[in-house]
């Protein structure tokens, strides 16, 4: 009997390689304003946001595509999107 192969993937580098270089703007998290709600972590489609032991979010810029969803969702306006070209 043949083994079943599932269409599942573990987190890791995708076939498109590291996606950080797609970015034209980057999210900067202002920790002082952050209330640790974790919404940016939930919404990041990559996911390129991880939470540290204290519950604060950090961006992994190797994968962050700069879509701005985290900044849009943040209820405390604690994420600024800054151009990569300025």
């Amino acid at each position, binding site marked *: 009997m043949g083994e079943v*192969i599932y*269409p599942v993937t573990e987190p890791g580098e995708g076939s498109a390689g590291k996606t950080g270089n797609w970015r034209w703007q980057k999210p900067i998290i202002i920790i002082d304003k952050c209330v640790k709600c974790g919404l940016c972590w939930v919404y990041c489609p990559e996911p390129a946001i991880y939470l540290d032991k204290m519950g604060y979010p950090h961006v992994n810029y190797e994968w962050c595509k700069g879509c701005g969803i985290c900044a849009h969702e943040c209820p405390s306006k604690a994420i600024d999107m800054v151009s990569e070209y300025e």
Partner: protein
Amino acid sequence: MSRTKLVLTGNYASAYAVLHSRAEVVPAYPITPQTTIVEKIDEFIETGMLDATMVRVESEHSAMAVAIGASAVGVRTYTATSSHGLLYMYENLWWAANARLPIVATFVTRTLGPPWNIWSDHQDFMTLRDSGWILFMVKDAQEAYDLTIQAFKIAENPDVRLPVGIAYDAFVISHTAEPVELLTQEEADKFLPSPKAIQPLLDVDKPYSIGNLPKADYHYILRKNLWENILDAKNVIREVGKEYGELSGRDYSSLVEEYECEDADTVFISMGAMAGEGMDAVDKLRDKGYKVGHLTIRTYRPFPDHEIKTIAENAKRLIVFSRALSNGKGGILYDDVASTLYREGLRMETYDIIAGLAGTEVSEEDFMKIYHDVRSGKLDTGKSIFIRRGEYV
């Protein structure tokens, strides 16, 4: 506890099978003639007989989406639909198969509109033919009960891991009550171990995603893998059917049901409720000395090629009754059978009979009339022949 025998409709028989299978999540959207299945399951839940969650969704598309989510975390999941509901669910039905999720569903066959029609034909069910679902069609309430329990065991087999559908005709089976012998809960539990044993696909401690964009070559491998697994599932179906037979006294170790086929020169092939009429016709024709048999296709996908080949080798002609039509081609079951014969290198007289479309009744007289007209050379082999209540149309 001893076994009970209840007078149940096909739909209630399905609901009792779900109860005894201890399904845990049942997302459902009502549609005639399926509705009384999930109503009954809801009653089991509300009265504390079944520890499950009924998810009332806004559409059939969502019903299957919920089923996909539940099954992907390893929960035993069941739903049911019919006709336009099945078509509305369609995208996610394919998703469930390709994601290899062991969902079990009942499809009560009902004609597709327009015009509006609630009676049975098999056109809705046939849209699942190529989807990767393992598909059964049963001919009475007892089979609906027995095969629904087996369906979970087949679907959850680690070498299969495919959704399984059990289909039967609207009203003739879904709403007609007949005696059904039920397993005791203890027997069912022993036959079908706890769904907790299923390896979850989605697990927060070991994150995965399902269905990410793959390279084409890898996707090809997945497609080929499903193909191999569904063919190998034939043996799983036979083994599960044999085990169920030893438990219940009702044997399901074959993908088909043969009736008087052994010495038959002419064999009717049909599926679903009309198989009963076909077998009654065989009795009447046998009384007059004609060597006729009937083959009921119970497992429709994977297709019982081997069983058909064995019957065909000993017969002179096959008369195939299709209750669904490939518009612009022919009877769908006929084309399945004909292609099996061709692949096996067998050439013989075959007849493509289109009967029971749009819920018209198919009677034993129809089978007998076709038999006599075939034997007297009135009907052409290989040509689609439409019969409606005894008249060629």
